[in-house]
């Protein structure tokens, strides 16, 4: 009795906690509303299964608790029931997987209109690079990193000359403009993580990773590192601002290009 009751309390408590929880995801700032919807859908389906199964267990524990003289049933198998459960479970799983894969296809298909933005991680700070007037990022390599060229931009590459380098300052993005975030690391694994963006991806030295998104809400957002990168991991913070087009244009006009930076050194 006590045990069955405890199980029921646990189920109700969990559901109430879920419904009343002040701990919930931050308001989204990109186009990835689908991710939130998928989490909600998964909560509904799994929550339903959780409640039904545990209440069933509680009922069994109450109804079939030990009594002197009770004899348990003898039923090794029940093919019909087992088949039925297999089919229902498979359908439930498919209902989660199918829409998930559809959204994943969108996530891995970068739209033509996306402009490129590079994020460079190193222990324990963020730098950024935007393509200049030519719209193309120049090549870069960790081998080229030196005091005057902290991001290892290839000085021979004509595309790189007008690239805008943001070292030790905030990144700005224009609202409504899809961006392909190209991610690069100087030293170890990092992960460019802005909770409001939902999307995130590891940064791996020796390769360029990416994700895409379309910022939808003007504001200031914290950048965190989401892949353990040494003792400074918890303190590797940065800032991204999503600007209106005017603010963005103004900010952009104040930035220095790679060639200007090199000349200053």
């Amino acid at each position, binding site marked *: 009795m006590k*045990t069955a009751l405890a199980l029921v309390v646990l189920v109700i408590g*969990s559901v109430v906690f879920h419904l009343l929880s*002040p*701990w*919930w*995801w*931050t308001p989204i700032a990109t186009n990835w509303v689908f*991710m939130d919807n*998928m*989490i909600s859908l*998964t909560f509904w*389906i*799994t929550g339903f*299964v959780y409640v039904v*199964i545990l209440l069933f*267990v509680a009922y*069994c524990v109450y109804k*079939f608790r*030990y009594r002197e003289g009770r004899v*348990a*049933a*003898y*039923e*090794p*198998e029940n093919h019909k029931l*087992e088949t039925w*459960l297999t089919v229902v479970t498979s359908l439930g*799983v498919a209902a*989660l*997987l199918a829409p998930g*894969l559809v959204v*994943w296809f969108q*996530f891995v298909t970068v739209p033509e209109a996306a402009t490129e933005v590079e994020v460079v991680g190193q*222990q324990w700070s963020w730098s950024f690079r935007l393509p200049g007037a030519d719209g193309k990022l120049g090549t870069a390599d*960790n*081998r080229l990193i030196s*005091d005057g060229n902290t991001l*290892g931009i290839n000085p021979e590459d004509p595309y790189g000359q007008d690239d805008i380098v943001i070292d030790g300052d905030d990144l700005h993005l224009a609202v409504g403009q899809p961006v392909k975030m190209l*991610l690069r690391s*100087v*030293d*170890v694994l990092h992960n460019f993580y802005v*909770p409001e963006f939902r*999307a*995130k*991806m590891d940064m*791996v*030295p*020796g390769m360029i*990773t990416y994700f895409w998104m379309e910022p939808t809400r003007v504001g200031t957002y*914290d950048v*965190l590192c*989401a892949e*353990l990168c*040494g*003792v400074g*991991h*918890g*303190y590797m*913070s940065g800032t991204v601002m999503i600007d209106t087009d005017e603010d963005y244009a103004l900010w952009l006009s104040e930035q220095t290009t790679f060639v200007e930076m090199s000349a200053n050194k």
Partner: protein
Amino acid sequence: MVEIKSTSHPSVPPAELEEVELYHATNFWTKYVFSQDAKIIAIQYSGVAIAVGLVALVLSSLIRLQLGFPEMFDFITPETYYQFVTMHGMIMVVYLLTALFLGGFGNYLIPLMIGARDMAFPYVNMLSFWIYFLAVLVLVTSFFVPGGPTGAGWTLYPPQAILSGTPGGKGLGIILMLLSLALFIVGFTMGGLNYVVTVLQMRTRGMTMMRLPLTVWGIFTATVLALLAFPALLVATVMMLFDRLLGTSFFMPSLVEFGDQLSYGGGSPILFQHLFWFFGHPEVYIVALPAFGIVSDLISTHARKNIFGYRMMVWAIVGIGALSFIVWAHHMYVSGMHPYFGFFFATTTLIIAVPTALKVYNWILTLWNGNIHLTTPMLFSLGFIVTFLNGGLTGLFLGNVIVDIPLSDTMFVVAHFHMVMGVAPILVIFGAIYHWYPKVTGRMLDERLGQIHFWVTFVGSYLIFFPMHYIGLVGVPRRYPELGDAAFIPDSVATLNSFISLAAFTVGIAQILFLYNLFRSLRKGQPSGHNPWRATTLEWQTAQTPPGHGNFGPELPLVYRWPYDYSVPGASEDFLAQNDPGPIAKGGSA
């Protein structure tokens, strides 16, 4: 030792081979220290695993001290925090759970449950334990070397694992960790081959594969997985050792460390992740499958009812084991691997949910129409169902690639895997200890203390890990020693963290009750008799309790039926032992 006798019974085949003489220990050293008796080795394995597990428990309390009450304790710096987290994880997964389930329960239960006198290769079995012990010593040594143990996270991802920005990366910490893992794998391989061969070769007459208790099926399949998965980890540890010590570049691309160009070049950090998770995901099932098997037997015995859908249970174990080898990259959705991998690994991962769900259904259908004794082992089994179900369902979030993207590397993941492969298997371990302790010692554990231990541990663990999911939903990343001042984290998260820490300390302290019970009952526990739970499987039918050298009397038991003949209609008692030739029930021919 024994004469071959023929028995004419339709379900017991005639003997084909003569028994092989056992090794007989002659003195204290060969009997209790360098023992070749699987039961002694099991106790040695369990003792060392539980001892090192207590270290991990203390480490987890230190982690919770920091998370619940940040900046209150000067000795917890980011360096030590990462060392605590790393060692806690590694000890729990490898040195406690794997060693206890396979080395501990495997050694004790396999020979007894299949009706064998010992393991197939007792000498190799002894070596297996001592190499494991050496691995633990090397691991513990790393706490005392300059720079301390590695703080690379239990996943040991390069390049950071062997660089100076990570605690122990440039010192001995990471080297000892990798050496210890390599030793563990060598030791495990010896034990593992033994378990597999013993199950395949040494079952007593009548013990067909489809009459094996699910405990043996779980441990057997987990061992096969481990034998196939651990080599990937061995390769990874050896290569990383070379990268660290010889300057090779298996996992190291060209990189710049704090302004210095390092001489590495051409290696792939992602290759390490593939190798690690090729081991690491089956590892989840190496821990889970024995728990599945054991909990099936506990539920059936204490509900006095046959396990529901035995054949389905066996095929689910085998199916999950096979599938577990093609889901590994769901740990790498945000690793930067080719995005199209996401389609494949999300699909395989969600498919594995189906046999897993069927197992849950069969456990609860076993309760249906049973005669449920709410003994301590049964309570722990119920606790397992709750936590495993919870962790399994949150697995549907993280396995579905697009849902994983926002949640990955947050506290949601930490909550998920603790629920599913921390709390759930450990509840089974507790239940199993309460269940088999009478066979190992001849005395019962105190039931009242057991019930208190259960309720505090179960409710406490739930209060730790259920709310933790919501900290992850907020977006708090894992492996952060403190919350920092990011605007999206409300102050209430810190309050919740303090609450979780208090729950964690309570659960930690409650384990003293368990240890006290364990030692006190050795002398003061009620004598258990041979078969206190009135169970069907062979280990309860031995002539002596604890079973003597050679396990069974002069003759090995003959097996006439499957292990779940509880409450058979028409039988005089509510159970029929596997070696009981009495009325043959329907399931007996399964």
